[in-house]
């Protein structure tokens, strides 16, 4: 946080206050108590320079550290300690200089309590001003943090929505439907209903909602069917779902991005015929889904960053605290295999 004394305006004000205070003290000593100029000036300067140094020290110290609790007690004890130090340091220094002046010594003893109170009040005021400064700074910093956090959350939400809608996929699909309305109207109708079902499925998906394999694979099938209309001539699907997996379940937001990734690298990035293979099997305690897509090694190096999969890995970790639920491997430099494992509890009701 910004130190108050690093601001030029406050530096000037502090200096001005110190000068005025010094002037008042030495004028009072000369004209009211009738000491000679030398004594008045030295006394006023010594006391007030100590006070100024204490104030600067106090302010800087509070910039370094402030206790969260018992702030007032902390400040009062420090102020008191500083006051005692100043008072006695000034006294011994001044009486050492002016030891011969008898009336000065008696005056000093007489005014010591008054000097102490004045010094304490001034230091306490200085400390309070500093506390207030830092408190206000903290508050505005916190407000700013909160504001930034809200802004980031909003942006993330928007990005999520945008990603969910997959504009590139959506508009291209619409374009394909549009072409079908002219070339093959009955096929266009089928495609529109599939697109509608797919979008409906997309909108109701959430990290917290588990769906069973039968429902999830129906959704994936819709997505692939639409891609097949767009790229019918070269997209081949090989989907195998084991009977005994149909009642197992998985979070509804994990598989689609994996398949999407497979399509992106396997289909969008090449103009050859491709086969996307999906196997859904049950292994002890886990549901295992394997997605295979061909890929172009040269393209892989320059193309995607695998961002989609990184975010899935992170989400899997958040859901299950396990780093190894998503595994990928490249085979023979042209086949990419993604293996997703979803832990299954024996008691299905506990995860629903």
């Amino acid at each position, binding site marked *: 946080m910004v130190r108050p004394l690093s601001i030029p305006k406050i530096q000037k004000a502090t200096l001005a206050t110190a000068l005025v205070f010094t002037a008042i003290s030495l004028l009072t000593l000369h004209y009211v108590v009738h000491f000679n100029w030398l004594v008045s000036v030295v006394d006023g300067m010594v006391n007030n320079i100590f006070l100024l140094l204490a104030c600067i020290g106090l302010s800087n110290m509070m910039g370094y550290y402030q206790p969260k609790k018992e702030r007032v007690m902390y400040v009062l004890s420090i102020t008191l300690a500083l006051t005692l130090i100043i008072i006695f340091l000034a006294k011994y220094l001044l009486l050492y200089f002016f030891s011969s002046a008898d009336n000065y010594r008696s005056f000093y003893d007489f005014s010591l309590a008054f000097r102490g109170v004045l010094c304490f009040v001034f230091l306490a005021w200085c400390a309070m001003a500093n506390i207030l400064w830092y408190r206000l700074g903290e508050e505005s910093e916190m407000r700013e943090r909160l504001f930034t956090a809200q802004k980031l959350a909003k942006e993330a939400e928007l990005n999520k929505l945008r990603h969910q809608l997959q504009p590139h996929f959506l508009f291209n699909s619409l*374009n394909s439907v549009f072409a079908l309305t002219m070339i093959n109207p009955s096929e266009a109708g089928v495609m529109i209903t599939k697109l509608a079902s797919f979008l409906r499925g997309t909108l109701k998906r959430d990290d917290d909602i588990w769906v069973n394999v039968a429902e999830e694979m129906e959704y994936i099938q819709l997505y692939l069917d639409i891609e097949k209309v767009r790229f019918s001539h070269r997209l081949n699907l090989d989907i195998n779902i084991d009977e005994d997996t149909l009642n197992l379940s998985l979070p509804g937001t994990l598989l689609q991005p994996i398949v999407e990734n497979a399509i992106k690298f396997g289909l*969008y990035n090449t*103009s050859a015929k491709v086969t996307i293979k999906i196997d859904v099997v049950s292994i002890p305690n886990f549901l295992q889904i394997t997605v295979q897509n061909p890929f172009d090694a040269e393209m892989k190096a320059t193309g995607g960053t695998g961002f989609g999969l990184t975010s899935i890995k992170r989400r899997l970790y958040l859901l299950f605290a396990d780093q190894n639920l998503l595994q990928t491997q490249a085979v023979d430099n042209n086949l990419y295999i993604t293996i997703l494992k979803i832990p299954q509890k024996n008691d299905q009701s506990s995860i629903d």
Partner: protein
Amino acid sequence: MIRAVLIDDEPLARDIVKHYIADYPEIQIVGECADGYEGLKAISLLKPDLIFLDIQMPKINGFEMLELVDEKPAVIFATAYDEFAIKAFEVNAVDYLLKPIDKQRFDLAIKKLPLRLAQLDRTEAVLDAAALNPMQKTRVVVKKDGVIKIIPIADIHYFEADDDYVKLNTVSGNYYKNKTMAFFEQTLDSSQFIRIHRSYIINVAQITKIELKEKDSYVVLLKSDIWLPVSKTGYAKLKVLLGL
């Protein structure tokens, strides 16, 4: 007669354009291509007057393909969704169609089919603007001896000005690109590539040392064992970037 080539990876998308063009007997479709490589081949072979060009395609995208075409035909771009591309089109007023393509909009594009020369400059401007897209910053597409190479940006050691071209010194040899140094200086990630001299942009990851040659004149040694001169302003930029 206007000879046209359709370049789009989705057959149905090509079908729409074909369907629309049927209304224009003066336009003849002489070729259909499903990716940028095929597109390049068709353009050099058939020398069409007009191409319909999709942006998102396998291997190299529409912009990258067009960069490699020496004698550019008139271009009507088509894209489904690409914020950067659409911005580039709008700014440079080149004709583009959004998918699904509306017939009236298509007719308008054909009607104002631009005078070739006037459009050429604007097409170049679109390519420059499109290159600012962060997706485009990861690689450079070049052609050498008729072969197209996609070079990951990290494989480039340095760029060197060479007459009207920029020479790319890379892991796999030298390539030429018909662009300016200013273009690369502007489009490359400035934390990765830095223009150290009027004639050189270097990959910062390639630096092994910087030496004082004589007063106020520095040289830099790259991992590939090549010394390059550093100008005064170039040295200032290096200092900032490397925190010297």
